[in-house]
């Protein structure tokens, strides 16, 4: 179950990020993109499929059973109950964490790239106003 205050915070971050990427100052746009990527990461983590609370690290040696029936058939799998037993897992969803882990690292790469791009734009054109970069305007 999601926490309402957390959801509210994430949406506020989205709002602030959106406002910033609509700016003309290229540095502000980059800051906006960073805020948006934080918000997206938090959003994905907070909507994991499980209601467990534990860190997804197996602390004992036996296999953790989820009592799940894996149905590989598309026809039977659709709208089939996800869980067989009534006892859900003890863990939080590990899959979303794995996704976000990748996303964080990729966002480092893209952020570094656009920061340097902004720096080079400033060097070439002497401005950080994206409205002054008009060569491709229709």
């Amino acid at each position, binding site marked *: 179950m999601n926490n309402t205050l957390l959801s509210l915070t994430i949406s*506020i*971050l989205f*709002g*602030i990020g959106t406002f910033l990427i609509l700016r003309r100052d290229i540095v502000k746009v980059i800051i906006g993109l960073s805020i948006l990527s934080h918000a997206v990461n938090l959003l994905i*983590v907070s*909507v994991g499929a499980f209601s467990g609370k534990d860190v997804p690290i197996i602390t004992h040696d036996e296999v953790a059973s989820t009592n799940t029936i894996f149905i590989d058939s598309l026809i039977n799998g659709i709208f089939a109950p996800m869980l067989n037993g009534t006892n859900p897992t003890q863990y939080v969803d590990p899959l979303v964490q794995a996704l*976000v882990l990748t996303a964080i690292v990729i966002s480092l790469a893209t952020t*570094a790239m656009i920061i340097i791009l902004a720096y080079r734009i400033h060097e070439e054109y002497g401005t950080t106003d994206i409205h002054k970069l008009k060569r491709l305007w229709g």
Partner: protein
Amino acid sequence: MDPFRLVTLAVFLPFLLAATVPAVEKLIKHRIGWFASLVAFISFLLIINVVPLVIQGESFKASVEWLPSMGIEYSIYVDGLSILFGIIITVIGIIIMSYSNGYMSRKEDLPRYYQWLLLFMGSMLGLVFSANTIMMFIFWELTSITSFMLIGYWRNRPESVYGATKSLLVTASGGLFMLAGFIVLRSITGTFDITTILQNDTLIKTVHSHEFFLAALVLIFIGAASKSAQGPFYIWLPNAMEAPTPVSAFLHSATMVKAGIYLVARVHPIFSGTEAWFILVSGTGIITMLVAGFLAFRQTDIKALLAYSTISQLAYIMTMYGYTTYHQPGIGVAAATFHLLNHATFKACLFLVAGIVAHEAATRDITKLGGLRHEMPVTFIIASIGALSMAGVPPFNGFLSKEMFYESSIEMGHALGSPFTFIIPALAVAGGVFTFAYSIKFITAIFFGKRPEKGIPSHIHDPSVIMILPAAFLAGLIILFGLVPSIVVQNLVEPTASSIMMETQHLHVKMWHGFTSSLMMTLVTFMLGILIYTKYESIAEWQNSFNRKYPFISVNYVYDGLVNNARNTLKRFASFMQPGPVKAYVLALLVLTIILFAIPFLKLSTDLAPTLNFNLEPYEVLVLFFMIVAAVGAAVLPKYLQAVISLSALGYLVGLLFIYLSAPDLALTQVLVETLTTIIFVLAIVKIPQTFKEHISPSQFMKDALISVAIASVVFILLLSATQGIVSPFESLSYYFIENALPLAGGHNIVNVIIVDFRGYDTLGEIAVMCLAALGVYNLIHSRGESQ
């Protein structure tokens, strides 16, 4: 080798060797042209090997499956018609590529030139040997594309670009009509294979009586007419003369423009013997022949004059292929085939002469030329042979086929009965008269009259042997075919006519066959031709004044109007779709996102009564509060450095939050990444002086705030609904990972196991992204060295 392999090799050798041209050019420099002519010569040898088979009156077909479910296959059909074209293409190819060695300056981009020439030759050979209509279509469009590249060879001349675009628009879109025609034909006959239809009489009868007969015929004929510059489609050919002259000689007189003729001859057995065929093909042919012959008068550029004469001569051939009655489906086939061959010789020869004159006298304008016969005697003789052959003067080959044209016109006139008995031969003579007049003009304008004092170099002489020999060779062919026609008639024309008529044909072509009515027509042609020639200047002047008075009575006027209109519309469209400011694109995306989320929310809103959950520890609430403060700080702090520090604080808070969300790996990564990002950010930001301060007007602020609030609300509703009992259509993969992390991968940390084990390739991709980003950053920083 069997014919299939020989022909396949002949078709694809130019394609393969075209790829090696740049490498070979490194080795042998400007002698690359000889390499290209060697390739053409090998293709010629390969095709010659198949000729004995065809002279025996046989045909050959073999195929390899390509897309069997669609009935598309790679199939080669060898018969008289394809062999005739194959020989014309390769022989003229050898001549042109040898001639280019003298014509093209060594400073030009020679590899590109010869590459496209070779590619064209391969496509053209593929076209004429195709048995499958889809394969034919592919090669057909390839010839259009290569022609486009060759016409636009001099890329920085606007006329070249205009001519290239025009030819591509007309011929390539004509090809699409042809494709539609082939598909209609397939819907009638059930096959894309043209030989299957040709060899099956009942199938041909089905085609004739089918309700889509006319649709198939008209569509295919539009393709043929656009390629062969017939009817209103003639407009592209004069502008195509912007190509280098050897290209004009090769593509736009001897081979590519004859692709349409080839198509008409190829489908002749399927459609001929009907009224529609006669009206469409001969009708278009006769009108084009007269109009183009007439319009040739006002041309002052020698190449333009030759272009109009090509259109008119192609129309002769088209007309003859169109002569048909129910009982005699192919009255003019033999004559057309012979004229096709002859036209390839004399027109290519004349183009080579035009190239020589332009090369030596540095102009192609006939008003600036004159009296060159003393200075260029050899060229003069060759030009006279070519032009007289075109005019239909004995003893050259043009005379023979012109006679046959008149004969078949008389025959067709008789077959139709009065009043056509007179009209058709009369129209044929009218076409001949125009031809005669401009052919004579071609010689007199360049070689006779007074030599102008100014405008041309003071010393003009015959060109080098490299340029004169190819033209002389063609002139020799003209005389040879004229004096001893039996050589080509028996070996090439008869098999071709037989393969078009689907039965053995015997022809008797002689220079002298008594005072026949066709000879009378020839004499009338000469007399009227001389008469018209004396009025040449006044006719040209009348045409010019007419054109000045009524500029809109012209196909070019319509074409330019259409193209400019399309261009302007697209320009408006593009400037609407790409206004420039990044903000416009972002706005479009955001608004679309809002709409895409809002619709399902509105539809499902009744089912989703969100349950609220404010169950948080006080320190968690504090973290959330500081996150918002940090984000607002990053947004509003005026100095870059302060804003970046505030952003960095937000990043660490997010890391803290990940701990509360039971995600220790994420928290660790987030802290490390945030540290790196902050360092990079600060390093870059201190070098960017803060000169720009955006002023946000209240209305602008309101608009942007509205969008932001809308996005925030959408996200909020999404998050509230996300875990509200929507049953996902699939099982979550997470269960699989939890159950198998330990037994399959032997890892306790499930997230780590997913990253490095189950989804190891994704991580590899991620590493690649990091490397690319690092390379990008490195190059961005180092690229400034060049500009300063």
